């Protein structure tokens, strides 16, 4: 006999040994005592206590969780074997309470009736989900074909049982209809309606499952037949009669998957433009490493750009520009103002306005003071803005003949 254990104690034990419980649940029926101990999660003493509380069972050196614990987990996660027995119990309980209620219209019976109606609805749905899942799993994963067919036949039986329960439940509801309506309990009415709808829906699912099972069994049967045929063909082949006693050639000729018809996948060459990009470079490098081609390895990837690279670039651009500009200025005879007004700047800069040119004039005058010849006389420039005549005075600056060759900033 196990020790008396209450809910709190049970939950505590499960929680404290949660890794052990999880391990045992994950490896049902296959863990030996030694393996469990080797996990190091549980001490000898704790193990004995769990055995005493009947949370664990040990038989022939195999350790397992108590079936009730497993059933609880499986029920909750809607996995595990289909157990229509539960529904049977619910149905007989429901019958019992309805007969009580017929005798004495008491609330406590009605409450139980509601409870079981609800439970039946949930249980049937759950069992069907499990059934569907098991059928699928068996077909896809059961490796032994004999067991596979047996299992599928079993599921077919279980399906019939569930259908039987659905019919019984409907019967009971039908029989108890009058009593239920006398009770004038709206909640009860809601629950019955829900159950009815649920039953109809579930019946549909079961029909589908039936088709699946039949389909699967047929497929397996087909496979078995094909295997027999394969053996027969092999026998013919071994006797060298394959091309004479069968239509092997015609069948093979008609085989159309591209893999068997020497149709290769289209091969595209990498575009040269792509190879010039950084992603392309990575590929180049991989190829280079593989075939040890140093030529391809030469080009490295650029360093990471600093965050303010845009700013830096424009600045550098203008500076370089002024330097060449001054250089050009030094090699001609016009004064600086006129030179800048008339100078054809590269297209990349766009059209420079009058104001921009004056700004440039001031900039050059200040920055390249040394190489310039300041004449300290004012010249005048006449221009028009929106029909108003204006005149601008500017210092006459000529190229400095003596320092023509060296440009140096102040």
């Amino acid at each position, binding site marked *: 006999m196990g020790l008396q254990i209450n809910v709190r104690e049970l939950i505590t034990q499960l929680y404290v040994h949660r890794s052990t419980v999880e391990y045992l649940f994950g490896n049902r029926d296959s863990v030996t005592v030694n393996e469990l101990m080797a996990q190091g999660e549980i001490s000898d003493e704790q193990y004995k206590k769990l055995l005493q509380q009947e949370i664990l069972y040990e038989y022939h050196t195999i350790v397992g969780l108590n079936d009730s614990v497993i059933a609880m987990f499986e029920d909750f996660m809607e996995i595990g074997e289909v157990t229509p027995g539960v529904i049977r119990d619910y149905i007989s309980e429901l019958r019992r309470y309805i007969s009580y209620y017929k005798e004495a219209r008491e609330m406590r019976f009605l409450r139980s009736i509601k409870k079981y109606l609800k439970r039946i609805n949930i249980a049937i749905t759950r069992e069907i989900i499990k059934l569907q899942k098991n059928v699928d799993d068996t077909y896809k994963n059961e490796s032994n074909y004999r067991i596979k067919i047996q299992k599928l036949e079993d599921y077919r039986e279980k399906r019939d049982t569930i259908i039987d329960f659905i019919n019984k439940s409907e019967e009971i509801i039908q029989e108890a209809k009058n009593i239920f309506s006398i009770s004038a309990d709206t909640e009860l009415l809601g629950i019955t309606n829900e159950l009815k709808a649920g039953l109809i829906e579930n019946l549909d699912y079961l029909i589908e499952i039936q088709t699946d099972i039949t389909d699967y069994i047929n497929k397996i049967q087909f496979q078995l037949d*094909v*295997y027999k045929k394969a053996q027969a063909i092999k026998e013919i082949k071994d006797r060298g009669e394959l091309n004479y006693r069968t239509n092997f050639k015609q069948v*093979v000729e008609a085989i159309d998957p591209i893999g068997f018809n020497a149709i290769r996948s289209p091969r595209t060459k990498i575009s040269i433009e792509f190879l010039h990009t950084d992603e392309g470079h990575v590929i180049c490098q991989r190829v280079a490493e593989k075939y040890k081609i140093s030529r391809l390895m030469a080009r490295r990837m650029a360093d990471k750009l600093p965050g303010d690279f845009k700013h830096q670039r424009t600045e550098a651009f203008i500076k370089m520009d002024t330097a060449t500009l001054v250089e050009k200025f030094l090699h001609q005879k016009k004064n600086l103002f006129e030179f800048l007004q008339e100078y054809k700047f590269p297209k990349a800069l766009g059209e420079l306005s009058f104001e921009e040119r004056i700004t440039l004039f001031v900039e050059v005058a200040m920055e390249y003071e040394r190489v310039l010849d300041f004449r300290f006389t004012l010249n005048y420039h006449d221009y028009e803005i929106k029909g108003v005549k204006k005149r601008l005075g500017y210092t006459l600056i000529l190229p400095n003949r003596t320092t023509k060759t060296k440009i140096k900033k102040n």
Partner: protein
Amino acid sequence: MEFNLPRQTHEIFATMARGNFISSNGTRDGMNRLYDIINNPENFDHLQDYFAQIRYRIERGNNFFYFSKIDEAPSLLEKKLETFEKYIDIIDLFASMDNKITIGSRFRPSEIAEECIANVRLKQKLQKIPLYRSETLSNKVREICDLMSRDSFLEKEDEESENYKVLDSYAYLLDIINAIAIYEDGSENGNAGLGIIYN
């Protein structure tokens, strides 16, 4: 032209254009996901239209898909005959195992090898399969598995334990076997005359 294609179109093309099958129970490189995408009727029509432009047609089998070429009729190649003769050998071997290997089966090459060592008939079958580089029986089984995986009928589920799974595309081979007609001639009295031992 607007095709409204799924995002995975490239992966689908890359897999199938290599001559591979896409099976619903394959898990490598998200094969089952690709299968679900092709299997969606809306996607299927879009993809079919799209690939038709480059003369590929998606062929649908039982839980698998593959490509065929629209304008190129399948032909009778020596290589093709050889391949399928080899497949007959392999399927015959699979069919003769105690635990018949078929769609959805999981196995390790060593299991097959062990059974073959224990059973003379199987051993002979295995030894006669024309493969070139293998000496030991287990290497030979391994080579068979490699070959079948390359043609996407098997999938190596786990590198370390060498666990293989038979994919849905295997049904294609079974269909081929089923399509082969055996001409009965009067002198033989059915299968019994062929000396077949059924498991």
